[in-house]
């Protein structure tokens, strides 16, 4: 149980004065006891470097890493009492599962006898349902089983911190979802502070208590998953989180009688002042629509922006479909429920509610207006309730 603080940490690979590469730039992150932090970002954004600095595998160029307010910068990895799950699992190939699990415990100065270690190994193996595999070598295990052994090796020591470095990246899609849930359950069960690196926003959203979105080594936003989704700090976060990608258009904000008027190519709409949390000054903006927030005109409510889209492609995903088409303001990607009568070439009328529109400053790309969090309950049910929507009409 540890309160982890990353305070102004910078990591530069190579010579800082000449052509060093800045991997992490003045990062501040605070993780409470038992919290699950996810470091999210594209490849090369510094998230793994951050994790490795927390684990002691890299030394920060400047700044402090603190465990429970104790600076651990110069404590070696082996003395930090952290456990790490690696992307390639990094199991010791010459040891059996039992030896792999017990290895850390045996190295530790904990006065445990071989029998104690064995007992603990079996306890953990039972918890992870790998007790039949204890005498196998890693080469005989499937990907999911290796993953479980790697997890077991981490939890067996009851460390201060769990560190996960893209632990699910090498698994197939189905297994990834199962293991994701298991990691989440396991972490809540043992209540150990965790840091988890991933480039998969869906994984981050589902598993995290707190998400740190990184880009080019700099922290973009630190917040709860719904904050990151609904009130992304800037355009980068908005585009990175959420799938399919957010639709972004150049627009101009003008004053209106009540609230503001947003002009896009070919369409314009009004945002009443009660849909705005703060004042939006006139000027250039980036307007964002989440594909999930579109609805077929008239199906949900009457207000909001409405426009026609010429469908290019329909990608059915079970009960919903992703529609790509040409709208008046450019390419439109929308997720809709009732797609069975539609085919490429058809025209589809889409609407979006004012409170679901995102606005970003055109210059700074900072958020001007986010998606309303108060409406979360209704927002969440939208995708599932599309059938009942149809009934209401």
């Amino acid at each position: 149980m540890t309160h982890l603080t990353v305070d102004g940490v910078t990591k530069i690979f190579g010579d800082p004065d000449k052509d060093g590469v800045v991997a992490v730039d003045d990062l501040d992150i605070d993780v409470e006891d038992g919290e699950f932090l996810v470091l999210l970002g594209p490849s090369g954004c510094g998230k793994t470097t951050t994790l490795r600095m927390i684990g002691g595998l890299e030394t920060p160029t400047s700044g402090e890493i603190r465990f429970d307010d104790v600076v651990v910068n110069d404590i070696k990895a082996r003395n930090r009492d952290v456990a790490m799950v690696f992307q390639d699992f990094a199991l010791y190939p010459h040891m059996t599962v039992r030896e792999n699990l017990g290895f850390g415990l045996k190295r530790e100065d904990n006065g445990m006898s071989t029998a104690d270690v064995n007992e603990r190994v079996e306890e953990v193996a039972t918890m992870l349902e790998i007790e039949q595999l204890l005498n196998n070598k890693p080469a005989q295990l499937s990907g999911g089983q290796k993953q479980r052994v790697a997890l077991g090796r981490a939890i067996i020591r009851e460390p201060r911190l769990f560190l996960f470095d893209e632990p699910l990246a090498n698994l197939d899609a189905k297994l990834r979802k199962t293991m994701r849930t298991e990691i989440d359950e396991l972490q809540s069960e043992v209540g150990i502070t965790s840091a988890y690196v991933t480039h998969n926003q869906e994984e981050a959203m589902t598993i995290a208590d707190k998400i740190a979105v990184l880009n080019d080594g700099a922290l973009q936003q630190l917040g709860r998953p719904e904050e990151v989704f609904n009130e992304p700090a800037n355009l980068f976060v908005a585009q990175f989180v959420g799938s399919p990608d957010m639709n972004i258009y150049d627009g101009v904000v003008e004053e209106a009688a009540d609230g503001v008027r947003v002009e896009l190519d070919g369409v314009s709409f009004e945002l009443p002042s009660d849909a705005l949390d703060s004042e939006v000054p006139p000027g250039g903006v980036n307007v964002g629509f989440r594909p999930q927030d579109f609805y077929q005109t008239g199906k949900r409510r009457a207000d909001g922006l409405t426009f026609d889209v010429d469908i290019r492609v329909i990608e059915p995903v079970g009960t919903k479909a992703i529609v790509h088409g040409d709208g008046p303001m450019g390419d439109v990607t929308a997720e809709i429920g009732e797609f069975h009568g539609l085919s490429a070439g058809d025209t589809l009328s889409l609407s979006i509610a004012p409170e679901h529109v995102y606005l970003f400053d055109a210059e700074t790309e900072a958020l001007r207006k986010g998606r309303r969090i108060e409406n979360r309950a209704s927002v969440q049910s939208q995708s599932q309730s599309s059938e009942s929507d149809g009934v209401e009409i």
Partner: protein
Amino acid sequence: MAAQDPDPTAEFRRNESWLFDTTAGAYVRKTAVALLTLVVFAFVLFPLYWMVVTAFKTTAEIQQIPPTVFPNDFSLEGFRLVVESSIQAGGYTSLFANLFGWQASSAIDIDILSLVLNSLKVAIGAGAIALVFGTAASYVLSRRDFAGKNALMSIFLASLMFPGTAIMVPEWELVSALGLFNTHLVLIFIYGAMTAPFVVWLMKGFFDDFPDSIIEASRIDQCSSIETFWYVIVPMARNSLIASFIFAFLLAWNELVFALTLLDNSRYTVPPGLLTFVQGFNTQWNVVAAASIIISLPVLLGLAYIQRYFVQGLTGGAIKG
């Protein structure tokens, strides 16, 4: 049209050939491959076969023209002479005379046992030197970047291509300056130096493939660098280390020229020792062959036991997680 073309699969059969697409053709191919294999097999193994049959022939039969492919007169004379010569040269004559009332007396005066012991000493020493230095060097060459690294690797490779005899003269001067003539130590040094570059290349391949994350995992598992080395790297490197050792061992075991020139016959290793059995027109070839067999057997058995590690080590199949 359909009637004229009764085989609907004809379209698919245009590229068929008798040799590759019929059962008879398959038999012909397999037979040809088998015959070729047999020829290669015979070519490789005939000298060994000839050694074995020669060992069991009598001197008269060996000198017979045309030679016999299989000994008419199965004789253990060659082996008897080798054993007797070893007993006599080793100074056990009186022991055997007292114990069994049997007087060994041999015209040849060579102790096979001491040849083998000398060779073992030199080969194990050379293997150890090559392994320790080669592995340490390869670890650094694989894990660290420094100026001149590629040049160094090229020099190591080039040194493998030189025939050992090319450096005889400077080697002689060095040995004489160090006063190491007629010692086994000098052979250990020379053989170790000759094989270390190979070990560097082999082990560098191993370390290049060694995943960093395993070392990091061991650090997270609270290992000091010594513990990481001993509990993680060494066990994983086992096959490559064995392969390296065998390579160095075999070179030292088989090397003739340096052993012949740097030692006198009281300290001979196996290759020059065997050579002393060859005595011009008086050579008893059955004795030479018998001595060769006796000397090869222990190495052969040892290699048979560890050959699977050897193959795995050479092919780099060591790391699979």
